């Protein structure tokens, strides 16, 4: 029997579109707000609202540790979480290539359902388009989310201050490395898995320690190194990075060694970089290490008033150098 696939008719707006929506999307995303109307109607939210949107075109669509569906939920959930916002509602738009496997689509929707349920976020609206063969690659997903900012939360990339500790919530570069392996372009085998994870609970746990969280940023494309430069620039501060304390999985270290890549510049999809006053740092790390997605949390550096805009590395021979900035195309289509 030939495999069932998505056809142009599934995107034509008729019976088959409804079938696709009913059999795949409604089956997985069902909740009282996901109706057949043109827009979802949501209850009033009392606090400040955060909103974010993100497109996902990762290739391959499935990788060790996740798939594009899980990634599309985690990406927007994490963007909201970084602003101290509890993710409440998501919308999702699919662009599916003609001929894409229906089973694969089902698997993607199931991953979205599972991840959304874990966070407690509801998918309330969606859209499906089918593009002709070759007009897109497999499936592209865009998710938009809204969340309610916790009253005590006040974070921004501009708020890092001299004296802050820089904390990372786990080992770096796993997602980028996983996609590199999954593409099999380099003939390297490794069982490295993506760190792709929803981080709302992780963010919430920070506020159990202190409300003085200055910056939370998820290190996606460009990795932790890029985040450090972004924050140094936005806040007008310098950052001292202790290279030896950056957690890197030995498998990632191995692959990076072979390919001459720097783990600090490989994408993560489940890691936060946090800037908070030094006096809370140890406690924050202890709290994070008890969390599901942040067991390898570590303090990796500190913020200085001097060297504004620069990231300075303390090296193993006791000198200081500038962390080189990433350049050009490292890996296309990682998220």
């Amino acid at each position, binding site marked *: 029997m030939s495999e069932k696939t998505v056809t142009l008719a599934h995107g034509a707006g008729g019976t088959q579109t409804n079938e696709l929506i009913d059999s795949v999307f409604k089956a997985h995303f069902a909740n009282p707000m996901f109706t057949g109307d043109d827009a979802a109607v949501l209850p009033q939210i009392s606090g400040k609202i955060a909103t974010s949107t993100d497109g996902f075109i990762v290739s391959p669509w499935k990788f060790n540790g996740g798939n594009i569906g899980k990634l599309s939920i985690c990406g927007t959930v994490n963007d909201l979480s970084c602003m101290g916002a509890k993710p409440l509602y998501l919308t999702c738009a699919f662009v599916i290539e003609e001929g894409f496997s229906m089973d694969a689509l089902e698997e993607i929707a199931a991953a979205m359902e599972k991840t959304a349920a874990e966070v407690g976020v509801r998918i309330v609206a969606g859209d499906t388009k089918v593009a002709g063969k070759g007009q897109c690659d497999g499936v592209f997903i865009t998710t938009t989310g809204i969340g309610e900012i916790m009253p005590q939360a006040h974070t921004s990339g501009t708020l890092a201050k001299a004296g802050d500790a820089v904390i990372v919530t786990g080992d770096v570069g796993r997602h980028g490395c996983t996609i590199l392996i999954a593409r099999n372009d*380099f*003939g390297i085998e490794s069982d490295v898995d993506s760190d792709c994870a929803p981080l709302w609970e992780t963010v919430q746990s920070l506020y159990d320690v202190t409300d003085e969280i200055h910056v939370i940023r998820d290190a996606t494309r460009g990795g932790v190194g890029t985040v450090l430069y972004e924050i140094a620039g936005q806040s007008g501060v310098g950052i001292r990075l202790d290279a030896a304390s950056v957690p890197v999985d030995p498998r990632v270290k191995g692959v990076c060694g*072979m390919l*001459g890549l720097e783990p600090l510049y490989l994408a993560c999809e489940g890691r936060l970089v946090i800037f908070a006053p030094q006096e809370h740092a140890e406690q924050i790390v202890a709290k994070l290490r008890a969390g599901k997605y942040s067991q390898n949390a570590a303090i990796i550096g500190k913020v200085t008033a001097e060297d504004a805009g620069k990231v300075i*590395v303390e090296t193993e*021979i006791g*000198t200081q150098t500038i962390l080189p900035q990433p350049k050009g195309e490292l890996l296309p289509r990682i998220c």
Partner: protein
Amino acid sequence: MNESAIRAKEIIIGYSGRPLRIMEVCGTHTHEIFRLGLRKLLPPQIDLISGPGCPVCVTAVGFIDEACWLALEKGCIICTFGDLIRVPGTEMSLAGARAKGADIRPVYSPLDAVALAKEHPDRQVVFLAVGFETTTPSACLAAKQAKDAGLANFSLLTANKTMPNAYQALVGSADAFLYPGHVNAITGNATCIRLCEEQGVSGVVAGFTASELLTALAVTIKLLEEGKTFFRNCYPRVVKDEGNPAALRMMQEVMEPCDSEWRGLGMIPASGMKLRAEFADYDARLKYNMPVITGKPNPACRCGEVLQGKIRPCDCKVFGKGCTPLHPVGACMVSDEGACAAYYQYS
């Protein structure tokens, strides 16, 4: 740091003798020296200069033009080590050719290119064979595999280089060389020993960890202080005097010496490797009856002098202005192992 590294660091910091010029020949050393901030330990009278040991940096402009010709005029899939993609040719880089529709693919190993040719029997695949003794054996293995499999859609565009004659061209550039450990692991130490005994060229084979680099540098300083010419192998865990006979045999079997153009150093006799006549079917220049393509480097670029240690990257007028890692004018700004890229990124 272990105890010997701490001791080595003390020797380096404490040096107070005559001015010394030490050249790290290898691009990986250049990169590691910058990554470790090693120059910051050096007293002012020690000048550590970067030599021509980055395979991307010494690849001539014309080679990129040849690759672009194969990609655009002949429609070949070009497989290459990633760094080469952004090296400027006369008119464009391989990235530029890709923007014009060429099929350019980064690979990790030449054998990946052979596999690609097997997967695409309807396409012609060309591997860009650059590099020193460290990478040449794998290119030879690829040619051999392709020949054994009777592959008709795979060939190599060669610009492989060997170090011994380049050392000759560099004699006098420095008081001592830090020899590239990975190259010596293949070639053995005979050339370096001969340079020492016959021409009075001093040098030390260095490894790549912080401790190995500090040790090699400290040994070099100590021996230079003594004033005699010397050769030392400070990377004995990997480098044996006889080198790697299997890799040397493989190169011998598939390739033979030829004159080769080095960016910056010009044509150096017998410093390159090309496929032997038995492998002519796998030589892209012969297979596609390639016209003579002579590259024209950008006249503003002074990579050549940088590669010989004559000037520092920042002495070049376009450094950091017209020429940056994102928009390189010269090859030394492309690879992480290039002296200009390293200077730019770490300053």
